[in-house]
């Protein structure tokens, strides 16, 4: 079975700087893979590359069977992935529910998927009617997670997903990621909160200087096997 993510010597230049300098990575379907590494190692760039947002300057990159060196295919992969990044893409003036509805409908989600996403992220109630500008950072992150959930992506790309969330929000996120994997999705996440992220991940890959560290360890934890 073809890996969901398959990178071979992938290079991405940001300007003239090689943000990814020949990265090799395989992620199988149903895996949760944690990317770890120091600031500036290339974790966010790698996630954006997998989302089809950055070009592959050299090397090979395939995500969900799409060849990312082909711009048309790179655009096609975007419909099938969900990226939860530092920026939320939310509109401050719109309500929480309006934002989830807009991004869900943009991805072709049915009304019941959107309602379910709001409920799954504990946003159904008074919160749903509040303008995003008036909610806390954690609630904003949960709104962003609900937008991702409504899209029902096959590949979840999570960049520091626990940042800004309280304990309850973090548990919610981990639970939803495990549920997604149980229903056939794959998760690639980058995090500095190693205790929590390693507990979630099936495998850890270390990135240093824009390339994978060959000493990357395979870590399978007890918690990661407990799919709710």
């Amino acid at each position: 079975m073809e890996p969901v993510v398959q990178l071979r010597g992938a290079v991405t230049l940001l300007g003239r700087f090689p943000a990814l300098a020949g990265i090799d990575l395989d992620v199988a379907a149903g895996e949760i893979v944690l990317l770890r590494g120091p600031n500036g190692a290339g974790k966010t760039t790698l996630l954006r590359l997998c989302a089809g947002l950055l070009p592959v300057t050299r090397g090979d990159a395939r995500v969900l069977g799409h060849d990312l060196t082909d711009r048309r295919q790179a655009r096609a992969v975007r419909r099938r992935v969900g990226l939860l990044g530092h920026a939320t893409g939310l509109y401050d003036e719109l309500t929480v529910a309006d934002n989830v509805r807009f991004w869900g409908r943009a991805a072709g989600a049915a009304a019941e998927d959107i309602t379910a996403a709001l409920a799954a992220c504990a946003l159904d109630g008074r919160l749903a009617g509040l303008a995003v500008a008036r909610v806390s950072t954690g609630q904003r992150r949960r709104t962003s997670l609900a937008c991702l959930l409504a899209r029902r992506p096959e590949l979840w790309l999570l960049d520091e997903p626990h940042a800004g969330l309280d304990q309850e929000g973090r548990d919610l996120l981990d639970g939803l990621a495990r549920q997604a994997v149980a229903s056939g999705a794959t998760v690639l996440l980058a995090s500095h909160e190693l205790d929590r992220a390693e507990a979630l991940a099936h495998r850890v890959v270390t990135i240093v200087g824009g390339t994978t560290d060959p000493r990357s360890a395979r870590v399978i934890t007890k918690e990661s096997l407990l799919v709710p």
Partner: protein
Amino acid sequence: MFRDAGLIAGKDLRVELRSQVTTQQVAPFAILVLILFGVALDPDRGILTRASSGLFWVAVLFCSLLAIQRAFTIEAADGGRDALRLSGLDPAGIFLGKAAAIFVQLAALEVVLAVGVVVMYGTEVTGVPLLLATCLAATAGLASAGTLYGVLAAGLRVRETLLPILLLPVLAPVLIGATKGFEAALGGVAADGWPWCGLLVTFALLYTTFGTLAFGPLLEES
């Protein structure tokens, strides 16, 4: 494409309704421009009346710059452009939706400005069909060309200052055509105005076609 356009237009208009930037900032700005022209030319009311068509469209042009800036500022606020690229929406649909939302806002502003011109400059409204046709065609041209240049400038750090420099020369034919069309409708010979209206329709069609084709690559590169 049209479903995506409707989604984007609905979202942009909802954002404007909630933020009320158009009603609380752009519309007062437009009225202020009319008042300032009125004060500057007041000693000779004849000039004011004769120049009312041009003054109206200059005011619309200034407002369109604000509306276009605003349409792309809301996307730049929190990674909206990347979210749009990831959304799976048809870029042509995004272009049409954004242009449609700008069109609606400008059309509403033109109604306010028209009332202002009639009240403040004492302009008599005649040749209503030509006036309406000119308004529709000119507004469509402003919205489509503005949306195209808006996305072009959106990714640049100097977008606020660059957009007027890029856009105003491009919109010169709209200013000229709309002013001539209005002059013909308001006391001139209406038949002289229709060719100008034709020019405006051509401009709008050209930029709408070009925009639907070019918006995707521009969104990727900006």
